């Protein structure tokens, strides 16, 4: 592998890792506040991509503008999902049953997308779709850069909300110790709902970013959920920094391997990392003291 090719795939890996980190952060939020593994996360991701495509198709405007609709919409849907569906499950079997429930939601979304927009592959054509930027000899597609920028801004925003705001403090308290948070006056039920909404909003951002340079079809979400779940286990369930690091490392690794052994085999890296983590450190590599119990 030549030096420039190596650098090129390294840069692409960072760009991919950024998007992965944002999406996995959403998964971590659900798990943190409710101990729920949200299988439907990537289905909402694809739904957001389809909405961006449809918006572009109908109005001819830039798909990025659809964010102003999808982000608030997904936020409200997330709150509704937590309040109306997840809380109805029995606490004792919540973790297992919520997996099945969100799996059902994922199937529902996949089926409805296929029903409404048919199973045909879709792609957004933009005036800047084909343009590239030279960056120290590496050629980077503008759309990939925009996607990464979107992911980076959202992650930074998420970080500021969690670290600086009062709501973020309450949310982190709920993640760390729900009972103690309740004792000091945090309304954990409401906070959990908002956390769910926040997580789903990341799916809206990620989906719009994805729609810029990917061909989308209804069953695409299965290709996303596996790697994302591998990332949150490797990073340690419930730890957002761990998730971000794992997403970056695995994203770069996948991008480097892609050149050598092809796309399909490179994707197995996520699963190899998953099984390796379980064998060596079942609680994940970064923090995540919750993982083994749930």
């Amino acid at each position, binding site marked *: 592998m030549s030096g420039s090719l190596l650098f090129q795939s390294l840069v692409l890996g960072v760009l991919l890792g950024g998007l992965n980190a944002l999406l996995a952060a959403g998964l971590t939020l659900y798990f943190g506040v409710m101990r729920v593994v949200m299988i439907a996360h990537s289905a909402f991701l694809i739904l957001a991509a389809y909405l961006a495509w449809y918006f572009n198709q109908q109005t001819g405007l830039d798909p990025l503008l659809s964010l102003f609709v999808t982000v608030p919409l997904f936020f409200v849907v997330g709150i509704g999902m937590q309040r109306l569906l997840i809380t109805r499950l029995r606490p*004792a079997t919540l973790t297992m049953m919520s997996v099945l429930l969100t*799996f059902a939601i994922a*199937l529902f979304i996949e089926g409805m997308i296929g029903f409404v927009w048919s199973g045909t592959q879709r792609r957004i054509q933009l005036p800047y779709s084909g343009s590239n930027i030279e960056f120290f000899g590496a050629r980077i597609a503008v759309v990939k850069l925009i996607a990464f920028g979107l992911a980076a801004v959202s992650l930074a925003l998420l970080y500021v909300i969690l670290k600086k705001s009062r709501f973020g403090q309450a949310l982190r308290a709920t993640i760390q110790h729900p009972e103690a948070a309740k004792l000091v006056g945090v309304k954990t039920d409401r906070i959990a709902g908002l956390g769910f909404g926040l997580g789903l909003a990341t799916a809206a951002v990620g989906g719009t970013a994805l729609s810029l340079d990917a061909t989308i079809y209804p069953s695409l979400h299965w290709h996303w959920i596996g790697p994302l779940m591998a990332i949150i*286990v490797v990073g340690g369930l419930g730890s957002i920094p761990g998730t971000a690091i794992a997403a970056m490392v695995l994203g770069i690794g996948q991008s480097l391997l892609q050149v050598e052994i092809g796309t399909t*085999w490179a994707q*197995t890296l996520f699963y190899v990392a998953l099984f390796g983590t379980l064998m060596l450190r079942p609680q994940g590599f970064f923090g995540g003291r919750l993982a083994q119990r749930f």
Partner: protein
Amino acid sequence: MRNASDTETVQRGPKDPKAPKAGAEGPAAPRGGWLTLGRGIRLVAFVACAALILSFPEMAPNPYVLSAGVVVASYACTATAWNFMGGFTGYISLGHAAFFGLGAYGTGLLIRDLSMPSFLAWLVAGAIVVLIAIPVGIAALRVRGASFVIVSISFVLILLLVSQAWKGFTGGSNGLVVPRPFPDMLRPEHHRVFFYLFVALLAAMLLVWWLIDRSRFGTGLKAVREDEDKAQALGVPTRNYKLVAYLISAFFTGLAGGMYALWFGDLDPIFQFSILLGSYMVLMALLGGVRHLYGPLLGAVIVGSALEYFKLEFGDTQLHLVATAVLLGIVVLFTPDGLIPAARDLVRRFGPQDSSIREITAAELLERNREAAGDTPEGDPKEEER
């Protein structure tokens, strides 16, 4: 004062352990007449159901219905095989399609490459599935709950990737053609033979389930389901028990997959290693009731028939996904214990009231404690009892 309180505990002593014992034997145990009546009804129902199932190929009006019956029988096999893990230990695996696909591909490849006799290849493939399941099971069972589900899904996704990418060995997306075991048999006759083979496999599974249910091993597994930490503290070798249950489950799922390969004769990675198939197993078992011998069978008959009907009515549209999703959602939200317990509760409501303590699960107990705690501002049920 001391003496008084002493006698009180002595008086209480023998009473307390007795009560749960009576409950464990089942509410019907003390009443002789009710017991024999119940047993008689059960025997008649069993014979009637068995006769109905065995005479199905004769009653099927056309070969299409017969082939749909074979599909439902294969679903019943996979759901029952899944229940060895899901029902006994409470570990919900969404990835059992992996073992189904491995059994199917193993059988096909052994016949194609080593030209083994069909049914020998079928058994060997089952053994290979167990060998593959050992390391996977050891890795997966290091974690609980959600992480276990993640691992199980990942395993299917890996196998899907590998079977699609490794074109030289598995045929990739072109699929793999499995030679039929009875080459000179006509289609309807072929369906009929395989219907009976699937039913025989199912009967073997039900027998093993019944035996485990009664054994010490089965009791240990159920202890893991109710409270794994307590079971471990009481000396149940939880890890080995779980692993053995996982292997039994994988073995039978693999056999069901191999049988499917021999019957259908054409394998495609997308259909063999599909998460959807794994979710059907979970849905069927949950719908019927995972704690019951016939639960997965009942669920398979309902869901399998519905799926076949949907395929016939709506063909290629994605609506069958929506229907599956809605059904799964309803089951998870409203009858997570399944139809058999729900029906039994309904029957019990009209039957004689039982006064003994009923067997309750840890989940129900926790639920009840939580409800009791919800009434008091303190939120600690133990405080309330004192």
